[in-house]
């Protein structure tokens, strides 16, 4: 295990002061993830550095930031994948969210949207294993069917979406429309819609999707799907909602 001296260029902002970048050099193992670097900067150099984190394994979604301008989860981003060995690693908060302090952004608007979508954070598990968000990870494994124990109607799991906000930061429409539900909100509406049979709830969810700040505001940049660390594919879900809305409109036209 080699220890490396890594220069970090971290965005700093405190209310009432101009923003700036601070450079910290941290000593961390070469096998470390970027979150370890931020942790070291805070623990060794500056306890006033504010940043979010909790689980360190892409489950809580709290640590999302931009690393060299690109949205990532530092807890699963290996230092070796983003650092060239010389240039300071630039760390910025997510875009399209108000900055509270340093790398911490205000996610209240984001969670209002997720609440409105009413997606339960657990769902039915697949009937086979392995389950992954990274298809390259299971390249060497054959999928195997899972039998359920007699007294179980299903296995359940947490939804892929970890509510990290990366897609909202990557989306160009989020920058332009202040009230856009966003890729996360719309993907959650899609999930919630497909988990229910209640026609009133479906009508309500589709109404949100069809609304002024719903699916029609998307302009097909597809950046959300590219940036999502959990393979949620929000763009695909937005387009699937559009397909359903169009189909329903046609049925109505034809008087079904």
């Amino acid at each position, binding site marked *: 295990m080699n220890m490396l001296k890594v220069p970090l260029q971290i*965005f700093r902002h405190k209310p009432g002061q101009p923003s700036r970048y601070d450079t910290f050099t941290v000593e961390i193992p070469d096998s470390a993830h970027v979150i370890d670097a931020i942790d070291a900067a805070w623990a060794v150099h500056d306890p006033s550095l504010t940043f979010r984190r*909790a689980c360190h394994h892409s*489950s809580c979604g709290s640590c999302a930031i931009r690393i060299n301008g690109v949205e990532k989860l530092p807890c699963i981003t290996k230092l070796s994948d983003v650092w060239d060995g010389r240039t300071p690693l630039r760390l910025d908060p997510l875009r399209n969210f*108000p900055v*509270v302090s340093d790398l911490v952004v205000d996610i209240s608007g984001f*969670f209002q949207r997720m609440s409105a979508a009413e997606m339960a954070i657990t769902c039915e598990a697949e009937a086979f*294993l392995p389950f992954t968000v990274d298809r390259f990870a299971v390249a060497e494994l054959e999928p195997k069917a899972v039998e359920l124990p007699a007294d179980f109607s299903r296995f359940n799991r947490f939804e892929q979406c970890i509510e990290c906000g990366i897609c909202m930061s990557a989306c160009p429409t989020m920058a332009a429309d202040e009230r856009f539900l966003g890729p996360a909100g719309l993907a959650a509406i899609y999930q919630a819609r497909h988990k229910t049979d209640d026609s009133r709830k479906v009508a309500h969810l589709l109404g949100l999707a069809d609304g002024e700040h719903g699916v029609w505001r998307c302009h097909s940049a597809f950046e959300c799907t590219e940036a999502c660390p959990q393979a949620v594919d929000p763009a695909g879900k937005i387009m699937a909602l559009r397909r359903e809305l169009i189909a329903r409109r046609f049925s109505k036209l034809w008087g079904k």
Partner: protein
Amino acid sequence: MGNVGAEKEKLEIAPHVIIIGAGSTGSATAHDLTLRGLRVTVIERGEVAFGTTGRNHCLLHSGGRYCVTDRESAIECIDENMILRKIMPDLLELNDGLFVALTEADLAFKERFLEGCAACHIPATDISVDHALAIEPFLNPKILAAVRVPDGVFEPFRFCLAFLATARENGAVVRTYTEVTDLLCSAKNVTGVKIQDHRTGKKETLDADLIVNAAGPWAGEIAAKAKVTVPEIPTAGVMVALDCRLNNMVLNRLNKPSDGDIVVPQRATSVIGTTSWVVEDPDLITIPAEHVDRMISQGEQLIPAVRKVPMRAKMAVARPLIAKSGTDARDVSRTFECFDHERDGMNGFVTIAGGKTTTARAMAEKVTDIVCRKLDVRAECRTRDTLLASYRLFFQQSDPRNGSSVSSG
């Protein structure tokens, strides 16, 4: 909504309790205290679950792990397991767990295991190896036995958020990114805290009728500011999260607890854990490479395919284990302890240390009982039956000290 004016008035004259730390203990305690009518402020230096709770193994214990070696702990676990299923039903993966025998020694342990489960009222079913391999196709085909128990999986961040959101709905104040820099003490009492809000840099003083020290492995550091000690040994452990989920159920080794004997699935990953070593500074833990390698080789024994899957993440954090007699870190009890520092000469200051997230609600009940007794508040604990509010509310409730809005360009 009820008589809001009268409720607000009651809150204003209620005793004020400050809780240091928004991990599972602090969050559950905030919930219990507010339900009993006290005014609560939670102070957390980072994000919610910034410390030990965040980097937890996420296992909702059935208690099976402790039913032979530590029955008290096992009973706590199964009782709390059932309560959590009631109060946070949408925040859990409930796929049960298997304890599997890989060796003759494991097989011999089975009888004691089943006895232990029965003695601790843990539902345990001995199932056939064929059935185990059918419901868990990536399980090591060489297993000799399997016992099914009601293990589950939670997510520590949202676990804490749910308790805190409920507490906030009931009037609690939660201040994150705010660090306790000192305790205000008179000769025999802790009377308040000095804090610094790192978002703004502003320093403040808060008075309290009582302070609950729920700072986990940092409890000793906090207690030192009142010149009292907490006998805890910060003990770190490494966990390895794989890039795919290879099991639906929690998989445990059917034997006494040891390193790397559990693989907990969660979302799209399987997490192998854990190890134990004492650390000097819980803020700066370097993950030893041999521990990571050991997790992979231990995990491989339960699930051979582990070796073929890349690692998604690795985490380590210090657990706040209470020092009792015995030097092996694993011998240190995992039950929790409340330290009422009045007996150390400092009243108004209570430390709650040790324990695990599965039993956080019970820990909170115990410390809240003590707090209420000390503050002469008569109220029953209602946390066993109170359904928790949606965790998403936490980030929508108003925070009295939010920073300004600035674009980061």
